[in-house]
């Protein structure tokens, strides 16, 4: 999926995979056909895709101090080279 603007196929794939549907299934083909002709639905599904994308990209790094506290908590500091 592209970073800012997932296309309908990206969104379709995501939707159909999560529905447990094959991309070529009647259901997916029908949804794809509807999406191709419905700007409102395209907008809606694009924003669903962007929502997922935002949460995917929002990550946090473990600090060195937190790593040391973890190894200490597990009594593995002596193995931490």
């Amino acid at each position, binding site marked *: 999926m592209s970073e*800012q603007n997932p296309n309908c196929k990206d969104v379709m794939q995501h939707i159909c*995979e999560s529905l447990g549907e094959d991309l070529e299934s009647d259901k997916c083909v029908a949804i794809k056909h509807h999406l191709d002709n419905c700007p409102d639905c395209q907008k809606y599904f694009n924003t669903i895709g962007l*929502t997922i994308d935002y*949460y995917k990209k*929002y990550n946090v*790094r473990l600090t060195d101090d937190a790593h040391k506290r*973890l*190894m200490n*908590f597990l009594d593995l500091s002596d193995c931490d080279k």
Partner: protein
Amino acid sequence: MEETKLIELAKSGDRQALASLVKNNEQTVFNFSFKICRDRDKAEHIMQETFYSMIKNLHQFDGHSKLSTWLYRIVSNHCLMMARKDKSKSFVSIDNDDELYEDRYTADWSTIPNQNIENDELKKILDDSINKLSPEYRIVFLLRDVEGLSTEETAKLAELSVPAVKSRLHRARAFLRKELNKAFSR
């Protein structure tokens, strides 16, 4: 060294191998913990408890899945336990489909400024929105959509049926999209 070899050595008491397993997975576990609880201190506590559980129960790990998948389950269980203990928090109900989809025709996110994920304002919107979602929905959304597990894997980890995962996933997605849409419309 390969994960399966490290697990084998760790099971036989090799502490160096155990430390390597922890180090290889700590970032994933911390990040996933944070994504569920949206709080660094809580995420660190859950990470510590998760690895403590891993060490205690490593002999039960059968190797049929990746270690990280097993760790996702432990993190999820710890997060759910912590959330259930915290009676002060309440979550919005997302059972009403009409409310979830009522603004479907109004969104136009192409004009939203500051779409960079490093933007603090956007981070706050993302935190506030997902914090309204109950952990049961949050975990399904995060495992399936954010971490990329299959629907079947998610169902197994969350101890839900596949239809229940799909139902929670659709509602969680629609709810989060609606919350972001509201925030972006202000």
